[in-house]
């Protein structure tokens, strides 16, 4: 039911733009990752998604590995 994803996205972009460089990570990939997780979480709120925690864990792991490869 979340309609203001746009707004959320904007805030996340802003924060990621500031925080991601401290971690030497590309802000855009952080934004994509977060929005992916938020989207999953939004679906989960409506109906429990099976294995959501594992899914999100894998997303973070993949992102971390990709980020370290880019470095």
């Amino acid at each position, binding site marked *: *039911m*979340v*309609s*203001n*994803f*746009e*707004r*959320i*996205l904007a*805030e*996340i972009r*802003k*924060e*990621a733009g500031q*925080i*991601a460089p*401290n*971690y030497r*990570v590309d802000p855009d990939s*952080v934004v994509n*990752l*977060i*929005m992916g*997780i*938020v*989207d999953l*979480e*939004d*679906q*989960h*709120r*409506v*109906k429990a998604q099976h294995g*959501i*925690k594992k899914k*999100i*864990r894998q997303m*973070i*792991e993949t*992102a*971390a*590995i990709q*980020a*370290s490869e880019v470095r």
Partner: protein
Amino acid sequence: MLLIRRIEIVNFACFDQVEIRPSANPKRPLTVIRAENGSGKTTLLRAIRWGMYGEQGLPGNPGSFSLHPAAWQPDSQGIETRVSILFETDGSSRLQLEGKPTNIEYELRRSVTTVHREPSAKDEPDFRRVREEAQLLEREPDGSWVPNVHGVGRVIEELLPWSLRDFFVMDADEAADFVGGSENKEIQRHEVIGKTSFAVRALLGLEVFDSTAERVASLRRDFERDATKATRNAELAEKQAELDHVRGRLDEIEKRLERNRHERADTDERLAQGRGRLEALIGSLGAHDALRQRLTDNEKHTQRANEERRSAARELSNDLTRVEMLASLAAREVRHVEQLLQPLYDDGSIPVRHLPFVKRLLETGTCVCGQDLTSASDHANHIQEVIDRSTEQKDHADHLAEVLDAATGLGRHADGEEWADRTDDHAKAVAVLDEEINNLTQTRLDIDSKLDDIDDEEVENARGRIGMLEQSLSKIDREITSDQEAREQLAKDSNKLEGDIRAARRQEAQARDLERYEETAAMLVQVLRQAYARIQDEQVRELDAEMNALFGSMAANVFDDEAVEDNQHKATLRMIAKVGLRPLEDTSAEYEIFADNSRGRSMPPTEINGASRRILALSFVLGLCKVSRTVAPLVADSLLNFTSGSVRTNTLRVTAETASQPILLLTGSDLESQNEIDLVNRYAGATYTLTGQWQHVDQGGDVVRLTDNRQVSLLCDCGPREYCDVCERLGQAQDERCTRRQESEAPR
């Protein structure tokens, strides 16, 4: 986003069959359903809620709440109630962000059949509902309808959460729950806060934000914990030290094994030598033993020979009488004598038989050779000499002759030969035995001399040495065996440790990975929390301001609301200086709607009058939708109750201007003033009028015509200042503000 396109209700309580097509025109978003009190407004709202949520959408105990038409007489065939809601959504807002066309049309169809049942208790209903079915159809791009894979519950819950039912399909009284209840009910502050907070958090996305942040934070903790665990499990140095120790011991054991193997070989060699020597010794010892055996045998043989000799002698003696024995004993001597005497006899050495002849010759005086022997002649002398000599031998010769005679006689005796032979045999046997005994004695002497050559002490020594060598060899063997076992164990230990070390290395690598994940998660949490804080802060502030602005717009120019105010003890709109939403002090996740007076004092909702509460609730609903950009219908009943004058006009105006799809159920008195009519004319994209047949003039009501003989509520398209055959009420025909609609346009 969700907009209702059509609502169709069949056989639902007082509705026979009605169809509403709410406006979806953004310029004229308002849908007005004019309905007098008691003409089916509440039922209409219930039908919509039932359509959306099923039995749980019904008030009270759903089982005893009847859905079927009042006119229906319970029978076994039953009657089917149906509600169909056609709506359009943009699917996922996220997909929309990504620029994908996502508008989807759905048709939600819910139906249930009511059948008769015999009540078992007094207050039990005489019906029950069977075969409740809900189906969600989705329109495909080619226009066909297919069942949605996620099902009704999921999609409806996503679009219109049950917990927000009062938010989108509200009875104004229920909407007032957001500010602490209505006139008839007070609800607990924590419930109000819970409901309000849920709506805020859900629509502003704070809920999803918060749960996302919480989940990522929890994952971060998991990563941290796993990393710590992996690091702890690694303990690489400790394991390496252990491995080094094991390898050291393994080396030691290898060396000792090597040493022992050499020693073993040496000992083996020495043992072989010792055994060789012993074997040599034991070999002669064997001879020794054989010799001893032979000696024993020899003794036995000698004994036997002696016995045989004795027995041979005994046999001989048994064979003979004393005489015979003597004879036999003498036989040999006799023969011997005979043999000795015979030649003597033959050559005349024994002249025993010639002496008388010679004597007679002397007596006769003549020798055989003719010579005179009477005178003392030489010849006679000679003969005399012979006689004299022979006479000297005569006794002797006679004896010899007798002996020869006896021997010859014996030799001629029949048994003599036999005796001699037998004696010979026995003598031979004895001689053989004597020979044997002789040999045995000689052998025994040999053996004794050989036995003297063997050194018993040397054998003992050799045996002792071999024993010691064997002991030391078995000690070495035991050591080797134990070392081999130890080596095997150590090799196992070493393998295990190597495995452990490999695992530890992997664990360490994993720990590094986990630390990276944790770092990433930490970063995500940081981004989420800060974005969340900002959104929460800003959006709640925005909402707070928006609520105040909307409230202000609706309560502007308040002069006349006191006219309808029935409770003078409660705070009125005029006393409210500021409304809004604020986070609770002790927690940032909960919010409370507040209303402050001009002195900045917060007024408890229970102290605010009904109109103010409604407007406060409405400003919350409208403000929240606006700030959260939620496009959704607002189906509201009794929204303008307790309001009048400019407040009523402003409330209608603000709702029409702010809500995405306001579907308002209004009474004639709500629409009495021209201001409201103007607003309807300006904003309404659809209008309807609901008419209860039971309000016919014959039954004490003001409905002019009885269109349907049943107790049903009929819907026509008439606007606030229109009437038709279905909805005409007393006085409308005379009222010049009202217009009659053509019959062809009604009823529906």
